[in-house]
């Protein structure tokens, strides 16, 4: 066969073998090597139990959250090319994105709906982990990482909420940060640090923007890595225990 001899020649050439350090994954050894020698695949174990793959056990909620986070990074970077975080320019650039940027409205829609969906999925993921008892030893620490990830997700959504700088954004953030300000002693200073002043204005906008596009996504990426790593270190999904 001409085709198969061609593929064989390619897959045995120097450049190919420098990229992929395993053969065609049709046998146990190469299937193992495929998973362990690829930076993305190596987050997975080489073998998984059939129990942990059952859809009715996990509903894939953690994976779905991670996928939505990926969609948010992708669409968020696209929006960053046009959006300007200043009180004078923010709203006009939103209009620009919606009316003159090719697929701008669509990209913004994807970003907004993925954000709401991610908050919802992360909450459901937490409920799933609780109801299957997957927070119990040895997974206590990973549960806490998960709670922190939930708070970071809420923070990422909340800081993004202000950026359109329309009435909806402005008053939602005013109401939301007022709640934080009700704490005795620590409340008002905490609110002032978050907003960079006593009211929602330019300082608040640039702080929310920086948190939204740099600090929180980096923290989430870091903690998701820790979260996935700990899943493996703690023996995979709790479904394996039964």
């Amino acid at each position, binding site marked *: 066969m001409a085709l198969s001899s061609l593929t064989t020649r390619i897959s045995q050439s120097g450049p190919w073998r420098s990229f992929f350090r395993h053969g065609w*994954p049709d046998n*146990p050894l190469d*299937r*193992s090597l495929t*998973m362990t020698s690829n930076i993305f*695949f190596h987050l*997975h174990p*080489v*073998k*998984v*139990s*059939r*129990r942990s*793959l059952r859809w009715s056990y996990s509903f*894939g909620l953690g994976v*779905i959250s991670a*996928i*939505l986070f990926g*969609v948010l990074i992708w669409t968020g970077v696209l929006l960053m090319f046009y959006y300007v975080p200043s009180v004078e320019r923010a*709203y006009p650039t939103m209009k620009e994105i919606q009316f003159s940027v090719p697929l701008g*409205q669509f990209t913004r*829609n*994807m970003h*907004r*709906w993925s954000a*709401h969906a991610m908050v919802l999925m992360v*909450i459901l993921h*937490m409920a799933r982990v609780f*109801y*299957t*008892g*997957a*927070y*119990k*030893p*040895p*997974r*206590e620490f990973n*549960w*806490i990482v998960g*709670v922190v990830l939930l*708070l970071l997700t*809420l923070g990422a*959504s909340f800081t993004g*909420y202000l950026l359109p*700088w*329309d*009435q909806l*954004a*402005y008053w*939602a953030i005013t*109401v*939301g940060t007022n*709640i934080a300000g*009700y*704490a*005795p002693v620590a409340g008002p200073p905490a609110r002032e640090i978050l907003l960079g002043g006593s009211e929602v204005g330019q300082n608040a906008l640039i702080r929310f923007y920086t948190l939204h596009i740099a600090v929180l996504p980096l923290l989430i990426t870091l903690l998701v890595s820790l979260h996935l790593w700990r899943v493996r*270190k703690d023996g995979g999904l709790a479904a*394996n225990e*039964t």
Partner: protein
Amino acid sequence: MTTQTPVTDEIFPKHTGKTYALVELMRGEGPMVGKGPDDTVFSFPVVLLWEALLLLGVTLTIFVFSLLKQAPLEEIANPLITTDPAKAPWYFVGLQELLEHMHPTLAGVIIPTLLVLFLMALPYLDHSRANVGVWFSSARGRWIVGLTALYTAIVMPAYIALDNAFSLRELLRGVVQQWVAQGLLPGGILAVLVALPVLVVWRRKADTRELMLTLFTVMFASAVVFTASGFLLRGPGFKLYLPGQMPWWYNPWDGL
């Protein structure tokens, strides 16, 4: 299986013709200690296909939804004109609903702090390893969760409706001090409503896991009730409207 072979013999067979041998068995703590060979499959390609399928499904759903529904963009922000109603994002609107019923420090700070502390402390309160990886732990657990959710879905809306009709804040204005009317009383009522199912389950010789199932379900279902009330039923002036009686010009879904 008819004959029960010890787990260690299963993992380390004695006569295999292997040219190497296991030298020592260690005592230790680890996730796989004491477990036999599992019913496993190679991750490649099953897990990757499964994930690729989810990736396609999720992005396609968001894609189609984004074609059908536009993200909202209202008038430019104006600090001088307050929108009516002014609502927090949907995941904080439950707290905003709580604020209508009690002192801001209680609703905005103490209760959310207690919720987060409860979540953080959970694995240290309940550390038995029985029935890990089973939904609701047992058939009894499933009943507990179902009945607790039902109880919460009745009691919490009733609390919201009653306090809305006969506001404690207004009834006791000038009668007792503010921290009693807005702090102690509503906080006490909520604490009793949360503790009641926990006590009932506890009286029936529940283990820690069953108590946690009750407590978590009361809190989770309450959060759903308060969020739904704040998001769907609060209209202009943040007043409570029955479903279908919302003024025609205000659609809560527009503020998503």
